């Protein structure tokens, strides 16, 4: 019979805020984010690390938070979809997804925007092939991806424009 494992103390910085918590060792990062921190913008769509609805930035790298234990995130800096906007203003990636109709049901969108965020940090001028590869791990069932490609191209242009200072 399984027994409740003792809690492990961790400290995770999420969207700039430090969260000291005690968690079960088996708790996944995505469960920690959704259940313990009540940041429900990060979603769960599969159970084999395929769909990417749970993608977050961890220490600057996009990771599928269903495949990281919460204890592995001890000391890490995490950015979730809730951390994209600044003082209520949408991040250029969020704005581009809206402008280009890059979402329908919106369930995959947070993960996709995080993958796009990492892509555009690494490569401000991606071609379509690079965009496709960057989001190959994010499943969208609604849009057929066409408008997501446009959204990421549009976001890249927005981020490159002189009016955007980050």
């Amino acid at each position, binding site marked *: *019979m*399984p027994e*409740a494992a003792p809690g492990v103390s961790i400290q995770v910085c999420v969207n700039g805020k430090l969260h000291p918590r005690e968690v*079960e060792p*088996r708790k996944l990062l995505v469960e920690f984010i*959704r259940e313990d921190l*009540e*940041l*429900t*913008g*990060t*979603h*769960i*769509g*599969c*159970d*084999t*690390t*395929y*769909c990417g*609805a749970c993608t977050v930035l961890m220490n600057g790298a996009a990771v599928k938070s269903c495949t990281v234990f919460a204890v592995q995130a001890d000391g890490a800096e995490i950015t*979730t*979809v*809730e951390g*994209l*906007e600044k003082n209520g203003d*949408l991040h250029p990636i*969020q704005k581009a*997804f*809206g*402008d280009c*109709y890059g*979402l*329908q*049901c*919106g*369930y*995959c*969108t*947070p993960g996709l*925007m995080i993958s796009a965020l990492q892509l555009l940090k690494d490569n401000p001028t991606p071609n*379509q092939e690079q*965009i*496709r*590869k960057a*989001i*190959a*791990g*994010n*499943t*969208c*069932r*609604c*849009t*057929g*991806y*066409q*408008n*997501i*490609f446009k959204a990421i191209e549009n976001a890249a242009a927005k981020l490159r424009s002189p009016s955007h200072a980050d």
Partner: protein
Amino acid sequence: MGCDGAGWVGKGLARKEDNRLLRGRGKFIDDIRLHDMLYLKFVRSPYAHAKVTSLDTAVAEALPGVICTLTGAEIANQTNPFIEIGPDPFARIKDYPLAVSKVRYQGEPVAAVIATSPQIADDAAELVQVDYESLEVVVDGEEALKDSVLLHEEAGTNRVWQGIFEYGDIEKAFREAAHVVRIDKMHFHRFSSTPLENNAVIGQWDPKDEHIYYWCNNSFPSFAMQFIAAHLGIPIDRIRVQTFDIGGSFGIKITSYPQMSVCALASKKAGGRPVKWIETRSEHNVSSAHGNERTFRDTRVALDKNAVIMAIDSRHIDDCGAYPRYEPLGCVIWAQVFPGVYRFRNARIDFSQAVTNKCPVGPNRGYSRMQHLWFLERVVDICAHQLGIPPDEMRLRNYIRPEEFPYTTPNGCVYDSGNYPKMLQVAKERIGWEDWQKKQAMARAEGRWLGIGIGTTLDSGTNNFGQSQIVNPNAPFSGNSQGANCKLDIYGEVVVAVGSCPQGQGHETTAAQVVADVLNIHPDMVTVRTGFDTERNVHTGASGTYASQFAVSGLSAVHGAARKLKSEMERLAAFLLKTGEENLEFGMGQQGPQIRAKDTGSSVNYWQLANVVNVNSAVLPAELYELTLNCRYVWRAPFKVPDKEKKYGSLTLTYASQLHIAVVEIDRDTFIPHILEYVAVDDCGKVINPPIVEGQVYGATAHGIGAALMERCLYDAVGNMLTATFSDYTPITAVNIPNVRYAHIETPSPHSYNGAKGMGEGGAAPIHTISAALQDALFSSGIVVSDSFNNADTLYRAMVARDIYQAGDLVKLEKRA
């Protein structure tokens, strides 16, 4: 008539839904946490067909944190089996939400565990001891019809339904035919559109008021409630269903009512605490719902000397999995598109449906029509190739002509409008048809396998539930309806509610566009309630989101409610401004939306109107007491009950159409098919929000391409599902999807207030189109594509192993002329 004149309908207005969804503030079921909430986990059968010989929950119940368990036997003792839509003998089967003494598909739930955390529920589910005695399994529909292995003993047969749809004079057509083509067997495979958010339910059976409260993502709640109320034996008005943001459905979430029932019963047993069930992806893939699988047998096609199809005679066997649930409606729904886009008048389809030891089916996007449309498109391409006629030419000779609309099909459906030759022309221009013909000739000269395929399909929308009476004369359903409410709230806010439950289709946006036009205000001033809620009192028994209809039924209801509100506002404003209604104009003023007297310019704003009706009513004369500024409107589709004997009548209101062309090359070394070019032309009449429509076309196209080349619900001979995870099922990704070139034409429908047709399902056009392209690539090698699913494996078997798709084995051409 008033001023539907602001012009928001037809514009690409940004989506109202996006603000919350982009910020991660969408409200999906798993985001909701209620006080004292419990978590439910199902114990599922690893066997596809087995007797449950013992079930012991004691060890699970002893685990700290477990509140209770629930078994099939307990449920059978306190509930009625679910309603069966079909007639006897299948109406006698007993479908309970947990298996009682026997399991009939892998993944069927046999028990449920309810605990204080999802993790404890998971642990406890593994402690439930179930012993099974395995039974022989049948996974093939045709085999199941032999009844050597019975799933439901009460029915005494696996045949859910059988009927003959016959029109015109078949025998005469075959006697007079110049050519007869015979096709032995074709098969449309099983797949699912697998919405990214899985099924999710929170159910609470509240002992204080004996009501059941649901927070769920079911996409046809008024249907689910009718099943649940009869099953639980409680009045339907005591069931409140609310939906919020839904992460896709594509029809798959229509049949989640068994799980909804278990959540309510679990809550009752747990003393009224709310019970949450969140389906995992693997559970979803094995046990939520799949699309219908269909086999086409002994097809005969009569053609005249010009290759015009005169008659089709065929036998179709649909496989609905272990329990019919929404079935046997699929046994008639295909007949909405009986002749597809073609003119033939003589046809006989002998249609049967069988249960098998597989997951029950649900109405997956393109439901029941796509299987039939694929069949027709295969028939057209196979006949064209056999007779040496190019596929575009073959279609032009057989299409219903633009001047023939409205066109009554042999079975009495009325195609409202369309122009298939024009769509073909647009698609050919867009893909560069002539150029590709040349490239194809060059590629073939180099020994490459390059094919060009055309698919012409229909997306019939706003169904007549009267077709249920064709499968069961006693079914108490007909017509179709949708409700909406439009009101001014106490401070004058414009608020709209509608009985749909959108899953990404942008209903909040398009409903706001319609209301904004009626009142001549900006859509930002219109609040559209999110999701479905029985207590908004706008639903009818047909409310939900399914069957490509929101633009027709939903927006007609919204439009009707807005017009009703406007009419009340006019009467009230005329009284307050002491003028005639004809002297009023709606628009914007310095204090927001207002109604103004044209001659004097004096005005009254929405706050003043709402104030008088709601909190300042002593100023009103008695004849205006009836004004509520809270207007419910029910739109009804103008249908009649079909002729049940002749299987004749109008089964759907609008017929959007799609024409796709694909260029596909099969790699000669790897046999992997690659799409080189893809065009999708759509006609859904007058478009309300062009980018939303375009997005729906892209989405439906991706589902079709995925289904044609990557996605299938694959079972082995003993009923193990082999594609139970996303890693095995491989839903299409950003690296598999080609660039889709979109174009549209508009043939307005006479049936909606603004000429729109329902759309969104898309007729699964890519499945037909890709089958056609593959056949075009390989026909000269003696290959006929007779299955809707193709990948490197099937193409290798066709070209090298030569054990499938051999034209010589599958097709016979009798040339008489």
